[in-house]
């Protein structure tokens, strides 16, 4: 039992409608109609989730419907997703059914953070950025 920690599980035969707040890790094997913000959300093979999700990591093996905003999304072979999916990184297994609107990097903040990461990771864009920056700073001087 203690192994579970603070993980919340909605059991296979359970049906929940309402509001869930202050949740960190949640697993859904039953039916849930709710909006939630969490660190990690897992929708099991028999799971059905209807509502908005905001999370760092979402693993979908069951059915999802709604607007999802997640850092990492893993859509496994048995999944079906409809609605809207905003993600930073997405993995989709062969067999998964996506019938949804998919957007990469949904917020300005995340988009900025991501481009900064890319600059740090790969030297090439960084060099070109520097060159651009150099060109930009150089041109006013030329003008003056």
């Amino acid at each position, binding site marked *: 039992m203690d192994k579970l920690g603070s993980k919340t599980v909605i059991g296979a035969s359970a049906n929940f409608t309402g509001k869930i707040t202050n949740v*960190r890790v949640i697993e859904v094997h039953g039916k849930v109609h709710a909006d939630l913000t969490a660190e990690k959300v897992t929708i099991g093979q028999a799971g059905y989730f209807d509502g908005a999700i905001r999370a760092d990591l979402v693993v979908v093996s069951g059915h999802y419907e709604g607007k999802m905003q997640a850092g990492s999304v893993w859509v496994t072979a048995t999944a079906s997703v409809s609605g809207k999916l905003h993600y930073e990184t997405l993995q989709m297994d062969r067999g998964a059914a996506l019938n949804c609107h998919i957007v990469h990097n949904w917020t300005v903040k995340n988009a900025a953070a991501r481009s900064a990461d890319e600059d740090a990771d790969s030297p090439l864009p960084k060099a070109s950025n520097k060159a651009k920056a150099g060109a930009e700073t150089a041109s006013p001087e030329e003008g003056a």
Partner: protein
Amino acid sequence: MSVKPYEKMTSLHEDTTYILGDLIMEGALDGGDHPVVIDGQFNGDITATDVIIREQGKVTGTVKAKTVVINGYFNGNLICESLNVAATGIVEGEVQANALSIDLGAEVIGSISRANAKSK
């Protein structure tokens, strides 16, 4: 088909509903044929076979179940076949139960009556 990591992950505790940690749930929960364990906060209606409110659990609302064990806090309307209020349990409100046990140290405030036939 080989067992993938996520299948292992989802095969644990699939049937029982656990509401754990600091979370707050509001609404209606039907646990179906499986137990519901609450160690967080729940406001609303619960229907299930077994309901266990653990020490950190707080439930406000209506609970209909066969067996109920309360180690935490309950406030509202409780209809069940058998109820056990453990030593750390606090119950406020209206209780309908056919079999009732209250441990030494438990707090029960409100009315207690026998459940009628319509209880699950």
